């Protein structure tokens, strides 16, 4: 069960306090976007979610099979690219998101095992969530000014 995540953004530009169970995080935007860079920006958090999920899922898989995986490194980047059938188009609405993930495995693993682990990383739950479409329902909480 995923714990609820709460964010409070007060008047200081664009810093937010994020709480997840007992864990506190800070999110912000970098200076060139008007923030103070006190924490990662939203897309960096999204990449962190994917890299973490891939790492944990692969480790669980290797452990069950008692494969000698000593460690794993994941590098991730997110950017907007032109849709493939629209190379050269310049209008904004032809841009689509893309995430690239590079993985290296440490340990005495065969080529077959490395390829299998790569496949497992590509099937981790957050990967599935990001590559499919997820429903987001929203509502406003009743009121507001009474809250501190």
């Amino acid at each position, binding site marked *: 069960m*995923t714990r*609820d*995540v*709460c*964010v*409070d*953004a*007060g*008047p200081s*530009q*664009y810093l*937010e306090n*994020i709480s*997840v*169970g*007992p864990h506190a995080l800070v*999110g912000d935007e970098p200076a060139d976007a008007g923030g103070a860079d006190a924490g*990662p*920006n*939203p*897309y*960096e*958090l*999204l*990449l*962190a*979610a*994917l*890299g*973490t999920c891939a790492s*944990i899922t*692969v*480790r669980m898989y290797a*452990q069950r099979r008692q494969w000698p995986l*000593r460690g*794993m*490194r*994941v590098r*991730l*980047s*997110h*950017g907007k690219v032109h849709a493939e059938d629209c190379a050269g188009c310049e209008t904004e609405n032809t841009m689509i*998101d*893309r995430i*690239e*993930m*590079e*993985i*290296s495995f440490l340990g005495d693993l065969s080529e077959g095992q490395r390829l299998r682990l*790569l496949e497992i990383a*590509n099937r*981790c739950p*957050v990967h599935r969530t*990001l590559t499919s479409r*997820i429903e*987001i329902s*929203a509502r*406003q*909480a009743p009121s*507001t000014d009474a809250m501190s």
Partner: protein
Amino acid sequence: MAHAKANIGTTNYAVSIMAGHHQLSADERAELGGQDVGPAPYELLCAALCACTAITLRMYAERKKWPLRAVHVDVRYTQEGKKGAIARVLTFEGELDGEQRARLADVAERTPVTLTLKQGVPITTTLWS
């Protein structure tokens, strides 16, 4: 363009992350074999959506010079079978009328991370040695 790196070693299931140049830790809770030294992957996903919502609404209210004093966003991820869903609750503080509040709720539907999650994003994965 956003970047992050994640490293896992042999301690179950602590992951050290660099998100941009910010250090984070992630883990699973004890019932899944971790030690809960940081949020779990789906909690980071919820955090990304929360952060994007809060920042986008603040930018919007600022441009409009609306008296939005604070935004609270509460995001919950649930999964039934293979189908995941996210519920988001917004609370606004400040002297805003009903129309402004409704407009902010509408803008929340189109923040960048909201659109990424709703539309899905292609992910390419390669081995680097």
